[in-house]
């Protein structure tokens, strides 16, 4: 059984476990948590292409999530659109927002880009507060749920998990083909990528717009799950959380960030002292990972596995051709 098969088997097992989760979850809260993880993953899966593959440190994705969530709440709630249409519309809107944001800011070097995305997160918060009659201002906005069969917790979980699975499939397709290779090349060395003909800005922009669409869809699902959103829901620390999930899981993979979001969402719920520390804990984790294993925790498992796996001992018996050696020595004398 090769490593490829084992990885596929693991993925199939994970998928099976995730699909049957409503039947074996202990209570409604665990199901809610799983739905939350799936909604987060819709966004993080897209963001992973930008942060993990292309190496663009977008720390303000909560702004796009917020746009998606508010667009869904306004379209499906106030305008009375069908929720499915509203999801599509907010995905498209966030894609456009991603394009408008990425077009100037992706040309900037690393720190400038990070600051620009952070500024967008703050700006969206400001605009939401300022446009009170549209967004409800500081009071917030109720969000309608999805119609049957997605109105029960289990049904909504399946809807969200399906969206997460689609995003995973899309990113996986991008990651292992030419686009993904190009993004990795940009992350490792922009000059080299340019030299071998990767359209740097175009590739980055495509990944960023895709992550914007994902943020819009994820924001809609997130808002429908929360059923009531206020500007405080989309605080800047949430943005940091998305970012930390990817960095901790490991850049340049899909399984690592996925495990990151599962563990980081579930851990504070299971260990209550961590919930009080909250972002301090995320900061500490990020610092530890950056200083000790910049490749991410996913890489640690690989290293440990390589250490534990008994390497086949290669023995190369040496059989010198003695008569020939003797002849050579004799002729040289």
């Amino acid at each position, binding site marked *: 059984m090769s490593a490829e098969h084992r990885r596929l088997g693991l993925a199939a097992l994970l998928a099976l476990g995730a699909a049957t989760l409503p039947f074996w979850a202990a209570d409604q809260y665990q199901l809610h948590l799983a739905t939350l993880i799936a909604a987060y993953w819709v966004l993080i899966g897209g963001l992973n292409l930008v942060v993990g593959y292309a*190496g663009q440190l977008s720390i303000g994705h909560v702004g796009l999530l917020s746009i998606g969530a508010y667009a869904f709440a306004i379209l499906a709630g106030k305008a009375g659109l069908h929720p499915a249409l509203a999801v599509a519309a907010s995905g498209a809107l966030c894609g456009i927002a991603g394009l408008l944001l990425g077009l100037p800011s992706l040309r900037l070097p690393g720190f400038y880009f990070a600051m*620009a995305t952070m500024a967008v997160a703050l700006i969206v918060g*400001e605009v939401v507060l300022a446009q009170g009659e549209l967004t409800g201002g500081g009071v917030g906005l109720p969000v309608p749920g999805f119609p049957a069969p997605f109105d029960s917790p289990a049904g909504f979980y399946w809807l969200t998990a399906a969206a997460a699975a689609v995003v995973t499939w899309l990113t996986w397709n991008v990651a292992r083909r030419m686009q993904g290779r190009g993004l990795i090349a940009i992350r490792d060395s922009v000059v080299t990528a340019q030299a071998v003909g990767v359209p740097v800005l175009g590739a980055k922009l495509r990944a960023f717009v895709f992550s914007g669409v994902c943020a819009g869809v994820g924001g809609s699902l997130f808002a429908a799950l929360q059923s009531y959103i206020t500007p405080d829901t989309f605080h800047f620390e949430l943005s940091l959380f998305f970012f930390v999930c990817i960095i901790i899981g490991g850049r340049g993979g899909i399984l690592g960030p996925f495990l990151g979001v599962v563990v980081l969402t579930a851990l504070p719920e299971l260990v209550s002292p961590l919930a009080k520390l909250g972002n*301090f804990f995320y900061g500490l984790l990020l610092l530890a990972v*950056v200083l000790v294993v*910049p490749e991410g925790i996913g890489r640690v498992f690989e290293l440990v596995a390589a250490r534990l796996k008994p390497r086949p001992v290669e023995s190369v018996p040496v059989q010198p051709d003695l008569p020939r050696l003797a002849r050579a020595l004799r002729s040289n004398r």
Partner: protein
Amino acid sequence: MLSALVAGLATGAVFAATALAYNVMFSTSKVLSVTTGHLPMLGGVAGAYVIAGLGLPWWLGLLAAMGTGALFGLLTELVAIRRVLARSDEHLWLLSTLALATMVQQAVGLWWGTEPRPFPRLIPQDFSAGLADQKFWLPIALAVAMAGGLELFYSRTMAGKLFVAMSEDAFAARARGIPTDRIRVASYALAGALGGLAGFAAGQLTFAYFALGLTLTLNGFIALAVGGLGSNVGALIGGFALGLLNALASYWFGGEYQQTIAVGLLMVVLLVKPEGLLGSKQVRPV
């Protein structure tokens, strides 16, 4: 109108001071630290704690503010910068300083509380002083003094010249026998002390508030990018311009769109003059 202008100048002075702290750290390490805005925040909180909380005289508060800032600057260099620079990976320092900034902000939030608390009066003055109020002129005077002092420090003292040498070319400086690691630590401590001082002086304007750090990190950076990376006078101009623009914008349109306008200014400057008003062009040797 006049009061809006004065308040804008004072806010701009805080941005300018943050931009100066950025500059001091950038000169020796070529790192733009996310923790920069948290230095004034720490200074403000430490000052308010010592003066209002413990009831000690103002000069002890000043010492505490500068000391806390310097200590945090040292910590930043030791924890988040040194090992990352040694590894010479592209933007890892952004991650490590971001992690440290998050940690310090959260720690202060847990200890100090998440509500902004008032900063005590430093000089006995009536609250009806209006435009001559100390909360306006203290930060303005300090930012100008800081920029002037830094210029003098760079041009007149040996230590300052070492800073300049390192900012020109760290490898060449090392080859000439300059202890670059020690100079870098010193620059972070200096930036921390200056940031703490700025937070102390501006405390009555900004209040002692744990979430101030990120806002200052962003606005200080905008001031720096507008004025030109590495230029102290540019930082001063950028900070004051940003503060005035914010004040005028809230005077005319209301206070909701401050951040939007600040980023708009940054985008316009970056489009027209990418190196900033007084910055030097970055030429990539091929």
